């Protein structure tokens, strides 16, 4: 069964179907059903994935533009699989959370939900693409639904944010396009298929240039310091649901791309640029956290925490140890859940109070304990509290990085302290203290909203204590990636008979 095409096909057909439905309410329900079907199919696919089987599974390859060797080639390895799972899980949650988001303006509600489904198809496609050209197409095409979601349904400064987002990403994308074409012609294989291109570029100088073409695109997408400034604007202006998908999934394409393309296609260049990337990541971790502390707008704050977290992910990718790589991949998934929960609950708050500013809140815990409690859990996941899944990934990334790069890992660990400051200070200002007059009548979470938050919190907790199912899928893929970069983990100073571990 062509699983991946089916997933995308269902989403696209669903998107078309939504536009045909006349009634807004029916359209929402329809979208929810479609996204749940996609989720069910994804889970069914994931169950059949064998972690120790072929690297790429569920492969489909068809000629697309034979003249240039462009294929419609999709397949997943462990890394892509978990990210597709993440997308498939987040979309129904976002649909449910965005139930009333699109109604505020005068824009069509159906279009919003249709765009969501189109976006889902593209998110699946971009992670599944094994043809570099197809990846590029999805990479760029993803911008369009997100552009409209921000630009048409966002906050007061939506058009500024949307244009900034689009131009910034397009700029990176174009650099990547040049690199993709150069890769094609220099490799001289007459194909864009990723597995055929691995290892074809041997010249180190060429590798460096091509690496930069890909890397800058991914660094903007991720976003890595100093290419991050589009994110706070975009995330703060986007409706909460779109912000979740933007930060939770779309940005992961950047770090995913680094892991998949930058490392495997250009191993020597990747090693050459590792100090630079690690430096940028570490700056991003500390800098993002410090700037987050100083924010007055909670959505911007969450966006800056993501800048910090993306620093961890990029650092994990480039530390090139098994546990850092696997940790970074796991981080991508967990960060999706964690930031998703934060954005959505912040969205609920904003929907109730009508303000994004932290100063407009106070003592919410008293009037809406469930809301405050879930917000705290989401916040704790953002500061990587053990017992929540983000801890596992952050711990793995830091452990793995520390093995090879001690000083960066130490500085990055400072982010752990800063994370506590930005989350808890925000929580204190918004939820604790005497109840502000303006929030005295805030209702607590309703049933729909509880259903939005519950799965996220449950996933955070379950993977916090039992991340093995994910890691079992991720680890072989990461090991495979690292072996194609030909690096091995550093050896311990004191070898210990490994009977217990």
């Amino acid at each position: 069964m062509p699983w991946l095409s089916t997933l995308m096909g269902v989403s696209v057909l669903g998107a078309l179907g939504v536009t045909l439905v006349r009634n807004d309410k029916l359209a929402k329900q329809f979208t929810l059903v479609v996204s749940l079907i996609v989720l069910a199919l994804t889970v069914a696919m994931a169950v059949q994935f064998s972690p120790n089987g072929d690297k790429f599974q569920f492969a489909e390859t068809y000629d697309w533009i034979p003249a240039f060797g462009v294929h419609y080639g999709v397949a997943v390895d462990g890394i892509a699989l978990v990210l597709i799972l993440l997308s498939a899980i987040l979309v129904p949650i976002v649909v449910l959370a965005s139930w009333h988001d699109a109604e505020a303006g005068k824009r069509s509600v159906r279009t919003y939900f249709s765009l969501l489904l189109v976006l889902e198809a593209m998110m699946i496609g971009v992670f599944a693409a094994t043809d570099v050209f197809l990846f590029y197409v999805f990479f760029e095409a993803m911008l369009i639904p997100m552009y409209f979601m921000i630009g048409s349904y966002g906050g007061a400064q939506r058009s500024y944010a949307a244009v900034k987002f689009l131009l910034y990403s397009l700029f990176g994308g174009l650099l990547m396009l040049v690199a993709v074409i150069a890769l094609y012609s220099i490799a001289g294989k007459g194909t864009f298929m990723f597995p055929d291109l691995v290892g074809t570029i041997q010249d180190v100088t060429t590798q460096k240039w091509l690496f930069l073409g890909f890397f800058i695109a991914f660094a903007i997408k991720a976003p890595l310091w100093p290419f991050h400034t589009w994110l706070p604007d975009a995330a703060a202006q986007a409706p909460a649901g779109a912000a979740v998908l933007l930060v939770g999934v779309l940005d992961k394409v950047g770090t995913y791309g680094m892991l998949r393309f930058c490392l495997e296609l250009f191993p020597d260049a990747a090693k050459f640029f590792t100090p630079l990337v690690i430096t940028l990541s570490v700056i991003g971790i500390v800098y993002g956290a410090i700037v987050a502390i100083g924010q007055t707008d909670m959505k911007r704050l969450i966006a800056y925490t993501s800048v910090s977290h993306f620093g961890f992910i990029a650092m994990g990718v480039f530390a090139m140890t098994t546990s850092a790589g696997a940790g970074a991949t796991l981080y991508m998934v967990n960060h999706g859940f964690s930031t998703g929960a934060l954005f959505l609950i912040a969205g609920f708050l904003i929907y109730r109070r009508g303000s994004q500013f932290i100063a407009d809140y106070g003592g919410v815990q008293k009037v809406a304990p469930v809301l405050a409690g879930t917000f705290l859990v989401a916040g704790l996941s953002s500061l990587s509290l053990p017992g929540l899944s983000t801890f596992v990934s952050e711990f793995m990334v830091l452990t793995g990085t520390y093995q090879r790069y001690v000083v960066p890992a130490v500085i990055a660990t400072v982010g752990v302290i800063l994370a506590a400051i930005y989350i808890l200070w925000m929580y204190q200002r918004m939820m604790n203290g005497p109840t502000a007059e303006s929030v005295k009548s805030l209702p607590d979470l309703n049933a729909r909203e509880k259903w939005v938050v519950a799965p996220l919190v449950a996933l955070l907790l379950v993977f916090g204590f039992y991340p093995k199912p994910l890691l079992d899928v991720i680890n072989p893929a990461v090991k495979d990636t690292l072996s194609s970069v030909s690096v091995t983990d550093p050896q311990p100073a004191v070898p210990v008979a490994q009977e217990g571990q």
Partner: protein
Amino acid sequence: MEPAEIIQHSGGAIGAAWLMIALPLVGAAVLLLGGRRTDKFGHLLGVLMAVASFVVAALSFAQLLGFAPGERRRGIELYEFIPGLAKVGLLVDPLSISFCLLITFVGSLIHIYSIGYMAHDPNRRRFFAYLNLFVAAMLLLVLADNYVALFVGWEGVGLASYLLIGFWQHKPSAATAAKKAFIVNRVGDFGLLLGIFTIFATFHTLAFSDVLGNASKASSGTLTAIGLLLLVGACGKSAQLPLQSWLLDAMEGPTPVSALIHAATMVTAGVYLIVRSGPIFQGAETAQLVVTIVGVATLLAGAIIGTAKDDIKKALAGSTMSQIGYMVLAAGVGPVGYAFAIAHLITHGFFKADMFLGAGSVMHAMNDEVDMRKYGALRKVMPLTFWTFLIGYLAIIGFPLLSGYFTKDGIIEVAMEHNAILGWLAVIGAGITGFYMSRLVFMTFFGAKRWEPTAHPHESPAVMTVPLIVLSIGAIVLGWFLIMGNRFMTFLAPAVGAPEEMPAFHPFSVPGLATLALVAIGAAYAWMKYGRAEVPAVAPRGSFLTTFARRDLYGDALNEALFMRPGQWLTRLAVFFDNRGVDGLVNGLAAGIGGTSGRLRRVQTGFVRSYALSIFLGAAVLAGAWLVVGNL
């Protein structure tokens, strides 16, 4: 004597040791998820889970005693937590089971006490949920068989502490104190995490058995680094210098919390960590020295802070800091001190919990008044509270034959043998202890009434006094029971090792006598100043030293000046830089392109003729180019 091998175990109470953690965890989950529906029976469920956990602990203890001393380290595999990094397993050995007993027993008593103490709080259910969560996390901390699981428990107790300090979160002071506690603890965690990373980088494993068993093979530099990093973690959790500042503020939490978390159990986790990682410290003398110095510094600092506080809970908190300083000092001495450290930890758990709960009882009676200058002459009104408190007081100052006498004097003697300077400093600390604890007791229970007009003190209900009685019994007998005949040291030896020669107990050694004398002088001085003399209702300005102590030795001021203000400044600078610098660059680029195109736009004058001119000139240039190229 080296620690014994760990034997994989299944079956029996020890095999079910995970229940100790799981039961309170389930309790917490039910109470938190169940919401208002569980309001009615929430506190009972909480108590039940704590007691059940104690039962499991007691049964495990019994089973453990059934094994030969060399076989008393039992490992239980649970599941693979992070493949390649850590499995989760439990380690039931004399050290951890001692903690389990302390935590579950004192924990249960405090649960019971809280039924009465929190009776009128609308959120009592949530309180019990957090308490259960704390017990589960604390048990995970001590039962874990590797550093990752330990860290999970470590942060879990931090979370519970955060939630409980900020339990009355409508009070800004409570919310701030909670946040402060968490953040300062995070600074400690920073060190602990780095310690764990270094351990992993060195050994490629995080299991206690592998790491500690092979610690001697690592270089002493590595061990020193690990030891110091772990010490930073311990300082954070145990409120040792320089990360002590959170503990005094943490008294914003309900008093049972202060008793359980910030006196008896959680704050001693640092001592546990140091003792558990003993082989690492024993390979690193510098680290050990730093540990002892930190311990002594803190025991003096805590004692000095305790002398000046009028807030009964803060005075007790200063005393907690000081007592933990003793434990850290002992833990830094090495195997000979471990038993005293843990023994003092256990006795301290009893008498300090006893006193905190007594203080809670007093506050309960005095409309939550905490200022001792508004107490006085309470011994008649609250006899049970008074007598139990008095036992705790005598135990802590080291009154002969009470618990503190055995355990604290043991620490002083061990320290004295290790390093005379440290030993004498510890003796001085004991003297100060005698003064400030006496001051506390005299101000609260003796002297004249200085009550607020609205106060109508009364004895607390039985649900609160019974735990007090039980704890005070522990405070009387535990020290003698544990120390006499080196009973505890022998018991702990399989887990932490023991010195070649068991120290003998000298009741009338020089340091012992000196301690007693100093304590007596301190107590007498306190009687003169606060017992016999009139206590002013408003604190006198006092000398520089008093102000120094009152201001927590300027710890907060130092933190503020060194970290908070520069931090705020840095934050503002970073935000400004981000908006104007990084984003300014991006927007500047955009504006530059926009401006250039705006200027270039002017070329489109709308005059057909100027367009024609450009075409014509272009054609001319082309013709020229053609000519040039054609002639080349």
